């Protein structure tokens, strides 16, 4: 939706909320003259909601409350949501500029390397950047016949070597939870 359309919908939503709120106030007993004495035309329109019988008052309250909720929902939907910046790892920083890589890019690289180890069926990783280098923590699901400690060690070595080679940054630690079960279940850690 274009910016103009968003603005138009927001203004209409705001007008609906204000209009419904004014009618609601009059319906529940506030005098029209105290709200719109400065605009006789509006005051006369609002007077039609004064002194309603119980049934009409209930309907008026329900409809205006519904319109207020609808207006609020439209306003919230039209309000631009702040987009969060994706976490990034700094590869180089100096006078010539910074070189960064998205955390998801590092995770993809780690997952690719892990998947190349024989016996690994699935791999998921999380990457954190500390002063001493990258800390990579991963979970691997391996084939039932595989040697868990051996596979986990190969995954660790492969990820550390690949990330350091491709990104040019130190990997301080790779922790792998290897398990036979699919990744939804718990695992056994090999450091």
């Amino acid at each position: 939706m274009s910016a103009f359309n968003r603005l138009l919908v927001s203004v209409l939503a705001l007008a609906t909320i204000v209009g419904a709120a004014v009618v609601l106030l009059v319906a529940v007993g506030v005098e029209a003259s105290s709200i719109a004495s400065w605009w006789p035309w509006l005051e006369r329109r609002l007077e039609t909601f004064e002194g309603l019988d119980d049934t009409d008052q209930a309907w008026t309250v329900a409809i205006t409350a519904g319109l207020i909720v609808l207006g609020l929902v439209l306003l919230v939907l039209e309000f631009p949501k702040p987009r969060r910046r994706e976490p990034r790892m700094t590869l180089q920083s100096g006078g010539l500029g910074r070189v960064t890589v998205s955390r998801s890019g590092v995770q993809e690289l780690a997952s690719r390397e892990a998947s190349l180890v024989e016996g690994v069926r699935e791999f998921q990783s999380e990457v954190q950047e500390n002063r001493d280098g990258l800390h990579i923590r991963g979970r691997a699901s391996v084939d039932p016949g595989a040697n868990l400690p051996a596979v986990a060690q190969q995954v660790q070595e492969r990820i550390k070597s690949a990330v350091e080679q491709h990104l040019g940054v130190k990997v301080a630690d790779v922790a792998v939870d290897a398990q036979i079960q699919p990744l939804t279940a718990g695992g056994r850690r090999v450091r």
Partner: protein
Amino acid sequence: MEAHGARSDVAIARAIREAVRRVPGVAEIGAGPRVVAATYGPGERVEGVVVRRDAEHVDLEVHVAAVYAPSLSLPALAEAVRRAAREQAEALGARPVRRVDVAFDDLHMDGGGRR
């Protein structure tokens, strides 16, 4: 020194985008996964390249996706991207270029073979 060239920021960003796209190892120029990095002009937006100027300098920011290859080195690729962006900007009169930030937003894993 001349910090303001004859070309608009959008024209410079467009030229940088084309130059960086030709750098071997670059899969595409992107706007960034969440926050849109772009240079804005009248009726036009060049995504993936940000041109910032102050009184004396021009700073650039380029967002790229890299193609995975066994020999991939992101620092080396960043240097090639930086060189291409700087040369293109300076050729269009945006000088002196002070910083070129290179952001790798993605790695395209289908670009390289298994090791």
